[in-house]
């Protein structure tokens, strides 16, 4: 199984993407999709990526919803900041110590943080496992640290480690 | 198979190049063998086509047309082989074959895939000569230009690279002009097929005829850049002088490509059949521009102090002469011009080779700072400099070759240069001896005289005066190449009649474009 399908997740995602791209479920499409997906997954394997092991898919969905909610909120917030005249607000860097070490987890965290407006992933020090982010509207650091750790890191930990 | 003969001169080199790429440089012998095979095959092909086109009575030989992809001529791309194209094919093939011994000798050193490049160049040349479609012409121009970039930059050194930079920049600009011109013509006539254009041009409505002419003019400039007409040809002498000798020798035909296209298009599109408004469009420009080119070339040649430059300016002179001759628009003169084209190409090629043999290639590669890079995955192109068998230069042989070259270039007897000059000049008097004709006549004679002066000085300098002139040891291949080229010149002067008849017929055919059109649209 592993031999033939080294990266099931990747293969699956590729197949899905293929079907979406081709916009059809004709047997020919599916067949070609399977072939291509397997081939590409194999090629991906040649790159020797770190192993991915996803534990709770349910949590994944919950996290996704949570992120979406945050995105909505921060979108409005940032939009407001941009639009209002002579707004006084301070922005700055926040350093957050992490437990999360799994690459995929970190990657997910990066995507989350960066794609929510108002926060940006700046740097991650693998040695000290400290994350550095930049916040647009920085009120107090502690709360931010807390938010990140509680809302995002915890579930990611559970999912990936 | 004979039906498909026409496409092979283009496809064969491409095929060979692809194979050579797949073989890589590890199998040098095989690669070289492939090159030789393809060149021989090209000569044979050209000969076969020659037989084909000379089948019918002189004047209008049979023009064979090949419809690529089996699409009707007006819409698809056609290849057309008439006497002129076949002539150019043959010239190219012979030149390539003659240069091969020298080139193989030189190209054994590493320096990237030169042999495929050479094949690509042949493909581009043949395509340019065969295609009957304006945009396809552009594509093949690009092919051969790209190949020349590659060859001109072979074994880069400071001089070569900066010359190449200029060459490329100029030609890129020219290509842009080419595109603009083609698209304008297409916009006005709605077709790209040359024969169809020839049919349509008389019927172009007057309100867009100006656009047509603008397009033609821009196109013309693009070609003139390639044909190195003054003042568009300053790039030429430096580039050619900088290139390694076999490459430069092959370049001897490059300017002729521009000349060929001008000849073809000016006679096909703007010949007598083009209606009152467009007939003989731009002839006088060709005539006087050509003369200016000759003047500049002559002066430059007189001033040139090294062999490469000397040869380069000779290229200028010959292409200027040809342009002027085309400008006269007279069948007999055209025939003479063709003769001159063939002879000068061969002679200049030989002269470039000689230059390479007489003056050592000072443009050795700059000492590398870094270790060479080889692509990951494949360790092609290892660097072993294998030294070919060289023989101490027999000065007498070199001297004789130089003398012969000089004679041919100056148009002095006994070799074919004299005949070519005669064939070119004598008809000029028959054209009713207009102002232009007389001027060109005089100019060509004077140019011959100045060539004598320049060659005489250089020859004396090298062979008599300079006691401690170091003749680098020459490779056998080089000698063979030169001898082949000069031998062909000699042969052309002994058995001159049949070729000249052929050329006369060719000129007739060119001046009667109706024939071409009929061939494409039966």
């Amino acid at each position, binding site marked *: 199984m592993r031999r033939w399908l080294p990266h099931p997740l990747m293969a699956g995602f590729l197949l899905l993407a293929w079907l*979406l791209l081709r916009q059809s479920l004709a047997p020919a499409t599916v067949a070609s999709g399977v072939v291509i997906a397997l081939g590409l997954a194999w090629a991906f394997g040649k790159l020797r990526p770190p192993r991915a092991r996803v534990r709770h898919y349910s949590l994944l969905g919950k996290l996704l919803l949570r992120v979406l909610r945050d995105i909505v909120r921060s979108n409005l917030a940032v939009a407001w900041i941009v639009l209002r005249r002579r707004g006084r607000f301070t*922005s700055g860097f926040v350093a957050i110590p992490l437990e999360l070490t799994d690459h995929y987890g970190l990657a997910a965290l990066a995507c989350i943080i960066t794609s929510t407006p108002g926060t940006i992933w700046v740097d991650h020090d693998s040695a000290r496992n400290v994350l550095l982010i930049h916040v647009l509207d920085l009120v107090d650091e502690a709360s931010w640290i807390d938010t990140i750790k509680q809302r995002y890191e915890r579930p990611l930990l559970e999912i990936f480690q | 198979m004979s039906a498909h003969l026409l496409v092979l001169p283009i496809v064969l080199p491409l095929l060979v190049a692809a194979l050579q790429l797949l073989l890589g440089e590890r199998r040098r012998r095989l690669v070289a063998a492939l090159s030789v095979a393809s060149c021989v095959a090209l000569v044979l092909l050209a000969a076969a086509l020659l037989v084909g086109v000379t089948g019918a009575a002189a004047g209008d030989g049979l023009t064979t047309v090949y419809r690529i992809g089996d699409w009707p001529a007006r819409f698809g791309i056609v290849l057309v082989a008439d006497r002129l194209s076949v002539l150019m094919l043959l010239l190219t093939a012979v030149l390539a074959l003659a240069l091969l011994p020298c080139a193989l000798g030189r190209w054994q050193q590493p320096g990237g895939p030169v042999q495929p490049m050479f094949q690509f160049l042949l493909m581009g040349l043949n395509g340019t000569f065969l295609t009957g479609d304006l945009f396809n012409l552009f594509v093949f121009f690009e092919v051969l230009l790209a190949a020349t970039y590659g060859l001109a930059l072979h074994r880069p050194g400071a001089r070569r690279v900066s010359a190449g930079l200029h060459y490329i920049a100029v030609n890129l600009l020219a290509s842009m002009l080419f595109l603009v011109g083609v698209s304008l013509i297409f916009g006005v006539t709605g077709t790209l097929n040359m024969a169809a254009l020839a049919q349509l041009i008389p019927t172009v409505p007057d309100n867009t005829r100006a656009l047509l002419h603008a397009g033609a003019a821009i196109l013309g400039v693009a070609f003139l850049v390639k044909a190195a007409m003054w003042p568009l040809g300053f790039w030429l002498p430096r580039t050619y002088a900088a290139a390694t000798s076999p490459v430069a020798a092959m370049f001897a035909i490059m300017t002729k490509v521009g000349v060929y296209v001008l000849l073809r298009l000016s006679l096909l599109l703007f010949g007598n059949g083009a209606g009152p408004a467009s007939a003989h469009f731009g002839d006088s420009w060709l005539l006087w521009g050509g003369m200016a080119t000759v003047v500049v070339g002559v002066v430059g040649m007189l001033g040139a102090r090294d062999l490469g430059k000397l040869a380069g300016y000779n290229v200028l002179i010959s292409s200027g002469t040809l342009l002027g001759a085309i400008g006269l628009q007279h069948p007999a003169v055209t025939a003479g011009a063709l003769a001159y084209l063939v002879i000068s190409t061969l002679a200049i090629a030989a002269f470039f080779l000689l230059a390479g043999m007489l003056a050592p290639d000072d443009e050795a590669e700059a000492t590398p700072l870094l270790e060479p890079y080889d692509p990951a995955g494949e360790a092609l192109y290892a660097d072993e400099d294998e030294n070919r068998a060289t023989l101490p230069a027999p000065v007498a042989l070199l001297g004789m070759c130089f003398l012969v070259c000089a004679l041919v270039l100056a148009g002095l007897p006994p070799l074919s240069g004299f005949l070519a000059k005669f064939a070119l000049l004598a008809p000029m008097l028959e054209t009713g001896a207009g102002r232009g004709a007389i001027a060109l006549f005089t100019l060509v004679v004077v140019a011959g005289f100045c060539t004598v002066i320049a060659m005489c000085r250089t020859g004396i300098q090298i062979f008599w005066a300079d006691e401690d002139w170091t003749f680098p040891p020459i490779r056998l291949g080089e000698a063979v190449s030169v001898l082949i080229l000069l031998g062909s010149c000699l042969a052309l002067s002994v058995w001159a009649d049949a070729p000249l008849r052929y050329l006369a017929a060719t000129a007739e055919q060119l001046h009667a474009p109706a024939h071409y059109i009929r061939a494409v649209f039966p």
Partner: protein
Amino acid sequence: MNHLDALPPWAAVMVGVLVLLGSGFAFVGSLGLLRLKDFYKRVHAPTLGTTFGAFFMLAGSIICFSVAHGRPIFYEILIGVFLTLTTPITLMLLVRAALYRNRVEEAQEPPRRTTLE
């Protein structure tokens, strides 16, 4: 615009609103890019475009085409996915680069790591 006329009114209104919202957010984002004072602030602005802007616009076109062709078309979802995957990469590197350059210019000292301000 015949194919748009083919849309049922509700769909038309919906698409219109979504399109307006999307473009609006993108607009605001770029405005922020223009107005905000220093780089670190500006970095945040375009995210609006990549999140909400893209989201609404894609939703709009999904609805539009699905209704128009009478079958569900999720084609555009891919765009969203790719966008969310790719924007972080560039932004991270960009901020990193900015940080580095600022550090270098302030004092010829290389960027200190986590301990900032």
